[in-house]
């Protein structure tokens, strides 16, 4: 019995050597491990943000327009880009390189739309006077606690760090996908799938950034 056949019957034989114990190539396993480490980076940042938020008076300054409208459209862009990426990987598995390239280019389009909208949203906040270590003067009075304690200036630091790092990931992802789209005929199917893994991970991180940073900071006029 060959090692492969033995491994199919006895899972323990997977670890005897001569087969791929996880049934994925080393590149794909590497991408999964990278994703695990990167998720820890983002978890640490988001938990650090939550730590600061729980130990400070925190402003909740995001209005429905532009902040929530923009971030919702951005969420829609990222979710749709994940769908087009899935179609791209699916086309690549059928060996249809032209369709795979078309879908990956659609993914890049949505990714760039996300970055563009996010930069416009940043500009709104910067124009309003938000900086990494200070808040606009009017927010200081508007979001002060009932006992007069002023809101924490770290709002800007956490906001720009977390969304900035995420935006950097999206931007890097579009470059990665552009390379994959350009070389899609030469690459193996698994390599296209690996780029898809990275892209879905970027989408996944936003699924936590959006509620924790945006939804939790909606200005509902409570103060």
């Amino acid at each position, binding site marked *: 019995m060959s090692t492969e056949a033995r491994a199919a019957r006895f899972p323990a034989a997977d670890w005897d050597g001569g087969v791929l114990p996880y049934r994925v190539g080393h590149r794909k396993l590497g991408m999964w491990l990278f994703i695990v480490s990167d998720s820890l980076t983002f978890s640490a940042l988001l938990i650090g943000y939550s730590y600061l938020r729980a130990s400070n008076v925190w402003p909740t300054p995001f209005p429905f327009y532009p902040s929530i409208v923009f971030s919702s459209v951005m969420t829609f862009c990222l979710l749709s880009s*994940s769908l087009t990426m899935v179609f791209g990987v699916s086309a690549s*598995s059928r060996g249809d390189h032209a369709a795979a390239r078309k879908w990956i280019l659609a993914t890049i389009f949505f990714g760039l739309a996300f970055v563009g909208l996010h930069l416009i949203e940043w500009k709104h906040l910067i124009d309003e006077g938000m900086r990494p270590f200070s*808040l606009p003067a009017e927010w200081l009075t508007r979001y002060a606690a009932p006992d007069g304690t002023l809101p924490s200036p770290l709002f800007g630091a956490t906001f720009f760090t977390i969304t900035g790092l995420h935006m950097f990931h999206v931007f890097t992802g579009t470059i990665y996908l552009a390379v994959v789209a350009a070389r899609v005929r030469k690459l193996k199917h698994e390599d296209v799938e690996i780029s898809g*893994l990275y892209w879905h991970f970027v989408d996944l991180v936003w699924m936590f950034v959006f509620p924790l940073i945006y939804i939790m900071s909606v200005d509902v006029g409570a103060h």
Partner: protein
Amino acid sequence: MSAHAEEHEHFAGSNKLFISIWVWLIVLTLIEIFLAYKPMPLHFMLTILLGLSIIKAALIVAYFMHLKFERLSLILTIVPMLVVCICLLFAFFPDSFRSLGLRYQFKEAPPPAAEPSH
């Protein structure tokens, strides 16, 4: 390999599944936005939002990232240790709640860092 055949079959004929996952993700996002404007206690809202986010993340990982269709050994290598590590980070929170009471509170003037803005 049966796992391999299943993977190809899955990729070939289930765009409908992926579109339904996408619709679910959009619906859950809309629920989150709706909740933002519902007055409710902060920790209550946080619990619901995180719950929805975890469901969304699970959908993305399981279907879009295809982990549901990978070997169990790969899933067991990646997921549990990540969950444990993230849970360990929550060990800092009692200190956070404590420092809310200890912190020097700015009451008179804006914090010094607010002045030099460039």
